[in-house]
Structures are given as C-alpha cells and as structure tokens.
C-alpha cells in the first residue's frame, strides 16, 4: 500500500482550522470558568445545613460523573426543547462543559476543603468569624491551592472533551476538521494535523495554568 501524505489540502484550509482551534479554546475557557464557579458553589451547597440541597448536589455529581459526556450534551440539546428550553449549539456546548467540569470540580475542590487542617477552621471560629467568612477567607484559597494540580488536569481533559461537541453541530476544531475531511477525503492529513493542534492547545493551557498558579498562589508553604 503506498499512500503519499499530501498536506496541501490541509494547508490550504489551515486558516479555517486555526479559527476553529480558537473556538475550541473559547469553549474550553468558558466551560472551565463556569465549572470553577459551579465547583465552588457546589461545595458550599454540599456543606450547607439543608439536607435536600446536599442531596441534590450529590445526585448531580453522581449522574454527571457516571454517564458519558455525549449522552449529557445530547439531552441538553435534544430533550430540553421538549420542556421549552431551546439553546443554540454553542450555548449548549458551554453549558454541558460547565456542568460536566463542574461536577468533577465539586468533587475535587471538596477534597481540598476536607484536607484543610481542622485547626485552621477552629482558629477562625476562635477569632469569632462565621462559617461563611471562614469558608471565604480561611478555607477557599488554601483548598484551591492543594487541589490545583488535579483541577487543572481535569480541565485539560475538559478541553479535549470539547471535541465531542461536534455531535450537536457546535462549531469547534473537530467539527471543522470533519468537514474538511469530508470535502477532501484527506483523512490522515486532517487527523494528524488536529492531533497536533490539540497537543498545542493543551500545552498552552498547562502553561497558562502554571502562570495562574504562580500569580494566585504566591504564598510560600513549608
């Protein structure tokens, strides 16, 4: 079998791919930011006094973590309209990514919060701070710092998960790649190229994460 790789078709449409890569980064960033918010709020809810709220959060986390992302995004896109909620593919993708990443973030951040030495909380209480103040000023930052590596590697996975959004016709790297593949039948060239692009994107993300960590967690620890 002699197949000669010919990247000319890919190169010709490189601008399209790069634009789509930007869209992928955009989806990932939006998803992550919301996921972080969901993660923090979810942890607050899980620590709340209200049993129902705690139960809801636990249920949400379990359902999301134990079903494939594809099924989740399908439901948001195809089933919600039956309840009158119609979201366009990009919004759907962001929401699905946020919910998926959020469920993982809740579990991860909760681990960090649980790992905060009890003495820290007691010191806060002894100073007269209230539960909310303690969470906000004493627990949150050190907890995020402890779990930062797990959180960011989860977010890199979330970035790669954006490729599944192609199945609800969202605009991102994989869908554009598939379109180019369908037009030209240059499958190898297209897939090799986007594999490389994904690698670049995830490396970029890691770089940015490292930078963020250096800026926000600049306090020394023993």
């Amino acid at each position: 079998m002699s197949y000669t790789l010919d990247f000319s078709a890919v190169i010709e449409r490189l601008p399209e791919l790069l634009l789509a890569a930007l869209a992928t980064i955009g989806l990932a960033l939006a998803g992550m930011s919301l996921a972080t918010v969901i993660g923090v709020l979810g942890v607050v809810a899980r620590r709340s006094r209200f049993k129902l709220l705690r139960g809801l959060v636990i249920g949400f986390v379990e359902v999301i973590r134990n079903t494939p992302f594809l099924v989740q995004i399908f439901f948001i896109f195809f089933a919600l309209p039956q309840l009158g909620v119609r979201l366009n593919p990009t919004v759907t993708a962001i929401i699905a990514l946020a919910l998926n990443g959020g469920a993982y973030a809740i579990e991860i951040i909760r681990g960090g919060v649980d790992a905060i030495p009890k003495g820290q909380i007691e010191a806060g209480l002894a100073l007269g701070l209230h539960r909310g103040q303690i969470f906000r000023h004493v627990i949150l930052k050190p907890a995020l710092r402890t779990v930062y590596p797990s959180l960011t590697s989860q977010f890199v996975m979330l970035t790669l998960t954006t490729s599944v959004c192609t199945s609800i016709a969202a605009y991102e790297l994989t869908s554009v790649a598939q379109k180019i593949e369908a037009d030209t039948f240059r499958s190898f060239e297209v897939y090799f190229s986007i594999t490389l692009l994904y690698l670049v994107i995830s490396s970029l993300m890691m770089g940015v994460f490292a930078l963020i960590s250096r800026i926000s967690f600049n306090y020394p620890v023993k």
Partner: protein
Amino acid sequence: QAGTVAEAKAKGTVVIGIQGDNAPWGFVNSSGVQDGLDADIGKAFADYLGVKAQFVPLAVANRIPALMTGKVDVLFATMGMTAERAKTIQYSKPYAGNVLSVYGPKDKKIGGYDDLKGVAVGVPKSSAMDTAISAGAKSANILRFDDDAANIQALLSGQVEVVGGNQFYGDRLNTAAPDKYEPKFDLTTLYNGAGTRPGEKDWNETINAFLDKIKADGELAKIYDKWMKREVPKFPEQLPDIPFTAQ
C-alpha cells in the same frame, strides 16, 4: 488483508467496507449483520468475482483511512461523488442516485436557496446535502450533525428550522410528526460510486465491468427496488472532474 483482484480471488474473499449506520444504504441490523443497498451490491460483487464477501462496517470518519491502508479492498459506503473527493480516491461509475431535498414545516415558505438566508439548516455531517447547501446558500446557518437520526431529531425538537435530507426523510418525518413537514425544494441528485485506491486499475476496471453487468441484467433494479422503493435513476455518462476509470 486486502490486495489485488487476483489475490482476492486466490484467497476466496473480497473485503468490502460499508457504512455501519446509514439505513437503508448500508447498516448493521439488529442481529449484528450488515444489510442495506450497499450490502446487497457488495454481495452481488462477491458473487461476480466468485468469492465470499467479508464486510467491514465503517463510520463516516474512518471509511477513507480503511480503504487507503488496505483494511478493505473496496468501499460501497454511500459515497457521494464530488470533484474534490475524486482527487483522493478513485470512483467507479455511479451505481445509485440520491435525490436530495430541503425539508421543512408546511407553514414555512421556502422556495429555494435564497429563502435559506439566516435560516438554521440541519444537515448530516460530511453529506452531499451539506456540500450542496454550503455551496448554494452561503448565508444559511448550517448545523452539521453526526448522522441522519440526530439531524431529524434536531428538526423535530426545533433546534433547526429546516433540514437537508435524502429521499427517505419524508417518510420518517411523517411518522414522527404526521402532516407537519414537507419537502420544500430539491437540491441536487447525487450519485454514489464505489471507491478504490487511486492507481489500482484492476479493482476499478473489475467494478466498472460488474456495474455494467448488473445495470444491464436487471439485478441492480431488483436491489434498488428492495431498498429504495424506486426505479433506478438514469446515470450520467460522465461527471465533470470525476473520472470513472483509473488512469
């Protein structure tokens, strides 16, 4: 694995790639057996060669790689013939035609490409409907779904206003939502050809000869009637920039 026609004959099997999930063209049925128009034509081709057919169900994303890396000898994989694709693979003469139309709700006025401006149009990813509408209605908001099922579901749930579909969409839409949808206008008739690796004259010539035979002796008509419930369309003698024979 795959090789030349002579090797396939010597081995007694021809390896045929078909689509795994594109009824009624090519699909794997509930018993896990490949079925559909492409499967029947594949079987006829194996009979023609006097060998057994070994089917490999493929997805849209991997049919070309499977052919190019020799994992299959030929593709009867619902491949619409376009000039750009013909730069990569070798098409045979066409063996099926597909009337593609735009479907939409009865109460929506859509007369042609011009009416698609700014309209959300669903199409199956990598399909000829995609190609046609992309070319014809540049300012349409085209959403590309993984397959026909998702595309139809998108129309039913209102995520798109109209869809580009093949001749089977009418029935399906009618079953799901009686009297609500209708074909709006025809896009094009797209012809499907078998695919082989470029430069491999033996396969291309053998398939063309086989297609000439089943077109002539009515076997194609029988298969066509079974799956498409239609008459075999009249095939063009040539298509611009799509050579039917290997050089």
